[in-house]
């Protein structure tokens, strides 16, 4: 009965999905991920796996101890392999250095206030104004400095002052990115640490839907990031009152918490005790895979350093220059050398990395 040739030009009724290989043949994919990434403490907690896990509503998530987990994976895991396909550390290829860039500039937004020059906010908002994207994902925080994600669609939303500024706490950006990708019409902009940027690239490599819709990826210079419970406990011990805290910053090896009435400073080395294991094996300081990387190091006070890496980001910077939304200056890539080297040394902590070097 070939009469019902339902085929329309809009769809397909047969297709193939390449299945990734399992190191542990008898186990489900999540158990493979757990053995290879989570239990070996390679996991960066970027939550790329949670973004694609189809076992809803349970699925891969953050467990109570702030780790990536899947409470009932023996029963609920669908064994599709999506988590393994997108995990940037399943077959970990550590990236380091300054990465490729076309421009290395310093910028200071005239419109927004942020950590330094507020160039992350400026890049995303300008991309929205250009029509390149219709929403950007921003990390906000509550009054306990726990992170939450905002879809910014209009510059006016940035009146929420907690959207700018660095939080030094992990955020569930990527699960929200998937929601944004399914909602968006023209495109999504996303901001994240190097591990999140790597996660986005993996998603884009595997799934066309992310390739088409994620148009601007802004990476942040990052030495390490912290679990919310651990850093908030530590800061409270140091005398930080969250109700009065307005800004956190790491400059010249010092962690500075600025409150309305006083500031607390201590050596950032002291935080090594609560350094997450995923950061301990991360060698990427500048988010080399991003469209543009932004950070404080490498420019004068009050300016943000921007490493423009590709065409999309270059067009946004051109737009900002044309509209005069920001002041620009010279970036100094050589100032990053110390921190780039500092993170590169962490390769020693990657299990089996030494062997690879010897080969």
């Amino acid at each position, binding site marked *: *009965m070939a009469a*019902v*040739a*339902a*085929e*329309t030009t*809009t*769809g*397909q*009724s*047969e*297709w*193939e*999905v*390449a*299945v990734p*290989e399992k190191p542990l*043949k008898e186990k489900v994919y999540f158990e493979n991920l757990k053995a290879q990434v989570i239990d070996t403490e390679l996991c960066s907690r970027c939550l790329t796996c949670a973004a*694609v896990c*189809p*076992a*809803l509503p349970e699925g891969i998530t953050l467990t109570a101890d702030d780790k990536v987990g899947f409470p009932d994976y023996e029963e609920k895991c*669908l064994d*599709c*392999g*999506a988590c393994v396909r997108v995990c940037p550390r399943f077959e970990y290829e550590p990236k380091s250095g300054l990465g490729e860039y076309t421009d290395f500039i310093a910028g200071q937004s005239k419109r927004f206030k942020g950590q330094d020059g507020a160039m992350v906010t400026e890049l995303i908002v300008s991309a929205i104004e250009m029509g390149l994207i219709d929403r950007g994902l921003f990390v906000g925080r509550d009054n306990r400095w726990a992170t939450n994600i905002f879809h910014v669609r209009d510059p006016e939303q940035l009146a929420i002052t907690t959207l700018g500024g660095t939080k030094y706490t992990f955020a569930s950006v990527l699960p929200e990115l998937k929601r944004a990708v*399914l909602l968006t019409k023209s495109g999504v902009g996303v901001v994240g640490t190097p591990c999140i940027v790597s996660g986005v690239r993996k998603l884009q490599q595997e*799934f*066309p*839907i992310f390739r088409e819709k994620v148009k601007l990826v802004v990476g942040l210079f990052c030495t390490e990031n912290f679990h919310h419970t651990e850093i908030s406990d530590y800061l409270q011990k140091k005398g930080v009152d969250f109700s009065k805290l307005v800004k956190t910053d790491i400059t010249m090896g010092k962690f500075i918490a600025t409150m309305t009435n006083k500031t607390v400073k201590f050596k950032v080395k002291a935080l090594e005790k609560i350094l997450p294991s995923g950061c301990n094996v991360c060698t990427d300081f500048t988010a080399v895979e991003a469209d543009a990387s932004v950070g404080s190091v490498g420019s004068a006070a009050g300016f943000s350093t921007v490493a423009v890496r590709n065409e999309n980001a270059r067009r946004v910077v051109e737009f900002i220059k044309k509209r005069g939304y920001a002041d620009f200056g010279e970036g100094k890539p050589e100032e990053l050398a110390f921190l780039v080297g500092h993170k590169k040394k962490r390769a020693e902590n990657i299990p089996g990395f030494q062997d690879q070097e010897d080969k």
Partner: protein
Amino acid sequence: MKKVSVSEQGLVEKAKRHAAAVGVAMKESVTPLTATVFYPRERKKMPDNFRGYLLFDPEKCINCWECAFICPANAIQMKKAPAPNNRFYPTVDYGKCIFCHFCIDSCSGGALRTTKIHDVAYREMGEMLTLTEEMIEPPEIIREDKKSVEYEIEKDDLHLKRTREVDGLFVEPTPPVEIPMVSQCVDRASCLGCRVCEEVCESGAISSSSAEGVLEAEGVLRMKIDIEKCTGCGLCVKECSMQILRLVRRGK
């Protein structure tokens, strides 16, 4: 500016017009022609598409909430039916209803239908909130009418036409037009291979090569939608976490 003036009429013309007026008056005094319907002893005959009291058939309801979404007066609220049903059905607040019948137009299952009932009385405002149970059967109506009345326009004049028959208040609903649909994958490369679609498919139309050993040997998962078996129910479309399945019109 133009001044309005009484047209000049001759004596004969004036007399003719007076005589016609007296004629009409005499005719009316013998057989009065009234425009009033003597409700409830007679009822006006309503067309089949009259927008009246709503009736509801839960068997046909697909729980799409479209009636509640479209209601411009916010008169329709969805209420959860008791367990084990647990589905949501509409209730109508006639205190708010403006009888636009958008709800009926939007009802894809044909669960809501109109009647010619326009005369329901309530003792207080609270009673006007009609629960789902009360919408299945029509309200109690005491019929005193023996005649039905229709307005007719004859020679630029409105006449009442009375017939000795009792007009039916219920209309057979027109069955909804069913568009044959079939589920298709619109972005094959974004498939996770989770096989949730296969799991939820009630008609067994979606199959995959996930049998023991086959997957490992081949290294690819083959997904297939059997368009002959697919009923176009859309369950797989709803459950696909990457939203890459769509219902498309079945080709001829």
